[in-house]
């Protein structure tokens, strides 16, 4: 086992770098989608609400694997159309398809978290802002969002944890992330339990390392409140979304 680790650790670490990159980029891009989608779902415009609800329903109701296949393999069916607009070279690239699917997927889940958090902002605070004469955008930026971010942060932490794990699926479309490296090395040297065991340990380090950092951010966000008070109950819900 030790010689296995010494021999293959560099390749696994390269895979880990790819995993971290995919998780980071997809979460950041996903947030850029989540904010407008959450606002659209809360808007009074029926068209906006319908579109955003459909998007969220589709991406939360189907497996990520199906979404990856739909975009990576499915785009081949529209090759001529994509060729005509010059997008085919993008959809042929597994890295682009992986990032594209992951960000749409996490965007849907994050928008639901944000929507729930905005709903949970106490009504009185919004009414107070309104009676002070703050305009809608200012109200959103100064009153609602800072509050919603604090409320939604523990749930969003879980979403990022889930996203780190979800990136393992990209190994199926030939990307050499941690799981991809483990599959390749396991199959070549017939060392399955060593390879997948090491992969599992790397994921555990990434996930619990991230949770440790997220807790520190959470404490900072809630510095003005009593420490170790509110967030605990949210955490007791576990890592599930």
């Amino acid at each position, binding site marked *: 086992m030790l010689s296995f680790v010494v021999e293959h650790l560099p390749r696994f670490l390269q895979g880990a770098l790819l995993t971290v990159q995919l998780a980071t980029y997809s979460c950041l891009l996903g947030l850029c989608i989540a904010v407008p989608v959450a606002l659209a779902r809360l808007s009074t415009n029926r068209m906006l609400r319908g579109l955003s609800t459909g998007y969220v329903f589709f991406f939360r109701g189907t497996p990520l694997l*199906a979404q990856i296949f739909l975009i990576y393999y499915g*785009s081949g*069916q529209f090759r001529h159309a994509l060729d005509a607009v010059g997008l085919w070279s993008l959809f042929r690239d597994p890295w682009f398809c992986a990032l594209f699917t992951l960000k749409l997927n996490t965007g849907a889940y994050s928008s639901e978290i944000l929507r729930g958090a905005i709903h949970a902002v106490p009504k009185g605070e919004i009414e107070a802002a309104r009676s002070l004469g703050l305009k809608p955008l200012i109200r959103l930026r100064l009153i609602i969002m800072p509050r919603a971010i604090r409320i939604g942060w523990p749930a969003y932490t879980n979403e990022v944890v889930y996203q780190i794990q979800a990136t393992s699926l990209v190994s199926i479309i030939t990307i050499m992330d941690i799981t991809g490296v483990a*599959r390749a090395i396991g199959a070549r040297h017939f060392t*399955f339990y060593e390879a997948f065991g090491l992969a599992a340990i790397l994921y555990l380090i990434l996930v619990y390392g991230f949770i440790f950092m997220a807790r520190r951010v959470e404490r900072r966000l809630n510095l003005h409140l009593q420490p170790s008070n509110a967030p605990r109950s949210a955490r007791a819900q576990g890592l*599930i979304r």
Partner: protein
Amino acid sequence: MPDLQGYGSLLIDGLMITLGVAIASMIGALILGLAAAAGKLFASRPLRILIEAYTTIVRGVPELVLLLLIYYGLPTLVQDTLGGMGHDVTLAINPFAAGIGTLTLIYAAFACEVYRAAYLAVPPGQREAALALGLSSLITFRKVELPQMMRYALPGLGNVWMVLVKATALISIIQLPELMRNADIAARSTQQPFTFFFMACLLYLCITLVSMWGQGRLETWASRGTTEGTL
């Protein structure tokens, strides 16, 4: 309706296997999760630490890695260990068993957390009152604590079911002919990947819709006799 070129029945067959795997794993997860939650709440310290380690590890490792670890890793580990002792065996796990086993193992850890939180949400006065009325410990649990606990646990367990159904798609990686695998087969032979993967997505959405409806009914039923109705 797109032309499925006669592959529609293949998708339905896959859907049946997907549902079978999901239901079997869910039943396993509900039972194992309840046992793990009971252990976490009442067992002795070493056992509690062991269960804590199990839920911590399982929730931190991707489902795909665990599945591959069990399907490919476990047989080779057993073979190597036995080979070291001088026994030569070849071992392979049936993909069906590996899939159900992995999903049960993973989602029992999530169900365990749900049960534990639900149990802690039932006020201790309920138990004390029942015991004071002379009910035995077992009857107290079955008639007083469990019904109230279920009301708190149902939304969380429904969530576990939804995530579990989607996780069954991963088993296609180890060649079990469930919905994703069959959609893949159809997509390859007809050269129409988008059509078939989209149909698979629609079928998953149907399961989600039915589950949401069922969950709503169950929650109404479980919160009968309470004033607030919803949590």
